[in-house]
């Protein structure tokens, strides 16, 4: 059939020349629409002789297919270009800060408590608790501190109000976490391994003391638990807590509830005015400890002839200061947002002893 090549060229050019989808559609309709040139030619096939039709039919069909494909291809190109143009137009200033979201934080006392729990959990210690308004029996007598013992005066104890006529000795705000030793052993017996973290109170307020602070008590009772085991336990704890080996020094001391008693120092350096734990030749006092006094075991209904073990108590706030470098204890309880955000921890930063 004559002119098909020209026809093809003409419409192919027109398709390629279409500048947008509307123009392309016009071209498509003009070529392939009901009254389009190619469609009209196909309609004209009916008037042809069979021989002519045999040639012209497939040729026209091929042309129609080619043009249809060309339209589709062109449409894709135009759509791509239109999208690109739209995306260009949709450009925003990504340097603009996004909608604000506030980051919460976990207080260092909570974080360090969780760290301590995680480490001692690995060593098989459960977590015990006790009330903070405490009877003077649990806070003192049961711990071998009788009423007129000078150690009682050194505790700077807060006393609760007593109504006139109520002749019980006034309750106290617990001055240490040690009463939990008694309460735990009374309830659960021995052998046991526990730690008891929590708030404690002393009537003292200056540069380095606040009337409330946090302690963690440790108690390990068994058949042959010794002070050598205590040293191992503390060294394991410090190594895990500070992330490096930390030497300890045991110094003889005295606490009414332990016998023998020791204050424990950890190795440190003050070189250049900065405190570094686990290196250097200096020592820093961090905790009090000892072998649980037989009278304390007896007060908790534990047979001191049969069982022995160690106890220790250390300051959680102080551990936090040593590890994370807060200079001032008082700021822990001041709720200054700047401090909370600077020294706080992310919600999902949950301490654990595996990776």
């Amino acid at each position: 059939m004559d002119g098909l090549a020209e026809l093809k060229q003409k419409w192919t050019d027109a398709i390629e020349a279409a500048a947008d989808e509307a123009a392309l559609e016009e071209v498509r309709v003009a070529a392939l629409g009901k009254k389009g040139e190619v469609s009209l030619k196909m309609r004209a096939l009916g008037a042809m002789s069979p021989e002519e039709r045999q040639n012209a039919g497939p040729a026209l069909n091929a042309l129609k297919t080619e043009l249809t494909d060309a339209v589709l291809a062109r449409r894709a190109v135009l759509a791509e270009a239109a999208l690109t143009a739209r995306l260009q137009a949709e450009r925003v200033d990504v340097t603009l800060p996004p909608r604000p979201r506030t980051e919460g934080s976990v207080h260092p006392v909570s974080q360090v408590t969780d760290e301590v729990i995680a480490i001692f959990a690995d060593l098989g210690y459960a977590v015990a608790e006790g009330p903070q308004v405490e009877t003077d029996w649990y806070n003192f007598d049961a711990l071998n501190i009788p009423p007129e013992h000078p150690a009682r005066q050194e505790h700077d104890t807060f006393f609760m109000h007593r109504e006139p006529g109520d002749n019980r000795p006034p309750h106290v705000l617990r001055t240490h976490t040690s009463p939990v030793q008694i309460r735990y052993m009374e309830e659960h017996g021995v052998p046991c391994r526990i730690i008891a973290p929590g708030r404690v109170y002393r009537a003292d307020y200056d540069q380095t003391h606040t009337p409330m602070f946090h302690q963690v008590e440790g108690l390990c009772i068994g058949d042959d638990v010794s002070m050598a085991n205590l040293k191992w336990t503390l060294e394991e704890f410090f190594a895990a807590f500070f992330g490096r080996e930390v030497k300890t020094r045991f110094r003889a001391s005295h606490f009414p509830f332990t016998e023998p008693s020791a204050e424990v120092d950890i190795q440190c350096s003050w070189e250049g005015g900065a405190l570094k734990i686990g290196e250097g030749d200096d020592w820093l006092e961090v905790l009090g400890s000892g072998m649980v006094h037989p009278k304390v075991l007896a007060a908790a209904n534990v047979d001191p002839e049969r069982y022995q073990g160690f106890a220790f108590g250390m300051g959680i706030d102080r551990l936090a200061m040593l590890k994370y470098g807060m200079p001032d204890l008082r700021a822990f309880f001041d709720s200054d947002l700047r401090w909370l955000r600077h020294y706080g921890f992310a919600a999902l930063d949950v301490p654990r002893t595996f990776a």
Partner: protein
Amino acid sequence: MKFTLSWLKDHLETEATLDEILEALTDLGLEVEEVVDPSARLGAFTVGEVLHAEPHPDADRLRVCRVLTAAGEKQVVCGAPNARTGIKVVVAQPGDYIPGIDTTIQVGKIRGVESHGMMLSEREMEISDEHDGIIELGADAVVGARYVDYAGKTDPVIEIAITPNRPDALGVHGIARDLAARGLGTLRPVPEVSVPGTFDSPIKVTLDASVRDRACPLFLGRTIRGVRNGPSPAWLQDRLRAIGLRPISALVDITNYMTHDLNRPLHVFDADKVEGDLLVRTAIAGETLEALDDKTYTFDGTETVIADASGVESIGGVIGGAPTGCTGETVNVFLEGAYFDPVLTAQTGRKLRIASDARYRFERGIDPEFTPRGIEIATQMILELCGGEASAVVTAGAMPQTARFYPLDSGRVSSLVGMNIAEHEQIRILTALGFGVAKEHGGIEVWVPSWRPDVQGSADLVEEIARVASLSRLESRPMGRAPGVAKPILTPMQTREGTVRRTLAGLGLNECVTYSFIDRAAAELFGGGAQATALANPISTEMSHMRPDLLPALLRAAARNQARGFADLGLFEVGPAWTGGEPDDQLRLAAGLRVGHSGPRDPFGARRAHDVYDARADAETALAAIGAPDRLTVTATAPGWFHPGRSGVLGLGPKTPLAAFGELHPAVLRALDVQGPAVAFSLFLDNVPMPRKAQASRPPLRVSDYQAVERDFAFVVDADTPADAILRAAKGADKQLIDAVSVFDVFAGEKAEAQMGAGKKSVAIAVRLQPTGGTLTDKQIEAVADKVVAQVKKATGGTLRG
């Protein structure tokens, strides 16, 4: 407890260096707190000689001196009136630090004349307060020698902390005993002294029945007549000054010396001011005494006092009285050495608020058996330093019995300490500390010396052995682990607290830890402040009551942060609160507070003020995190510190509130200085039921493959109809098909009333239908929609909005 090295060496024959002694003291449990080595502080200053002094050309009061110093001849400008030719002086060179004026001196010009150093006064060296002129040394001082060597000020002062169980270490002799037991030298025995009396004491002593059995079982005394109570000798003054005591007079200084040297507190009465004999008795309520500290004390009738015919003259074991005190004119004295009960002495001292060296020692327990020797030694010192003649000793009462023994199980010592200490070494240590050790029927008996009242059982013997053997030798010994995977160690409640904490931090709140006690006014705003929750001895009125809730402190914290310029903030705390003053009255709470807006201003208009629904969302998120039931009742019954119309309680029925939430009452905000808006919640963790049983498996998931359909309804209801009532009614319309119901619009207020009538509002809800048996037909959907409308009408009277 302070002493000097040379003082210690009076009692301890030793070759040990200062450092070795200090290390041993700390290791023995006598923790060294401070060592002041005067030669380190004053060692730079040297002896000089003023060769020539002439007036300063431009200043009347200054003198220009040529001084021969360790560094040669120097010109020094000096303002002291006594700076004159020929005297020996103490010189500081340029670059030396002068402690008394806290300055490092330099070469400088004073009124135009160069000065190369400084001549020092006693105050400038912090030796005394003397500042009338520069120190003039004796002619024997050698130019260039160190001042401290010339003046003999090289004796280091050691201060140690004494634990309450070691009264024996409150005398230098006791400290020396510890060091000797450690092997740092040989203890020099306290000399045996006896001064026979030449006459009978004119003053007699009687112990009243009220004190004889306990308060004062033993009282020794003697009169010494014809003494001269002048200043004590320089060696004694120096020692007292070195440990921070002011020399007063020979008699007083001797008693102070005995107190610190041998831990034997004594008292001297001016015998001429004592009327008649002395009676030791319990005070009579209302009696008074003007004491040596110039204060007058009134007794309540429990104190042990020493009285003469005219009344109370001394408080036993605590402080003497001024009227019978010794002065420079005293010629006849009565020396007292007694034993006062530790507990009663402590009570008296605490009640009267007297902190004396005597009380400190008596309340810890002195050595009663040393009383007679103490009297003899003190008598000898008095006779030596003050002259005079001593009477026979008068004795009232009898020596209190302290003898006791405890068994020692040497194997148990090693087992407890975890360190092998041979039995013979254990015995050596105890013997060196003055314990008597006897092997009896295969066991060991240990007798406690009279100066160790603290040793009350075998366990105390273990401590003595361990500390002398040295805990620094302790080697760590690993402990076994339980086999298998470790069991969970937290209780469900402990886990719950942690979960709440980290959930709230995840919601953008900053965790605070605030004091457990707050001021009464703030406590009262939150339903607390009762007497039962009050501290008897608060540290301040700001911290007087145990907190009833965590919110007051959080609000105060918010106010402080607002004052620092942070207007928008979110704080929370997880911790205890109290309903009363008994151990059981402690609650576990978590509370959160959002103040101001959701954030700073932003270009998207996302900022909005916090409202009650933020607080409810926080509370619900936290409750969900700890497994609270998901169907909670919501009632508008929040406590009075919330806005009455913008607050609620989430609970399991009216008796079990799990959380209160809402906007805070403006009056509360005003009282606590917080700029609103502020919304808050409190979670009552104790009330949240624990899951019945830990069951890991969950019910099978049933999902439908058929298309869900959502239909919207707008109801016109009375303005006070709770949205919850509409939701519940709609949800109940077809329990099979209706999967979820939610509110997506509320139209209320003046405009709404204008459209729908007074007292009306419109609530629009979306109802999601989830078929399980086949796709819903229009007819089925219509049927459900009709049921929803009917149910809502029935429950609330609401009608479909036209």
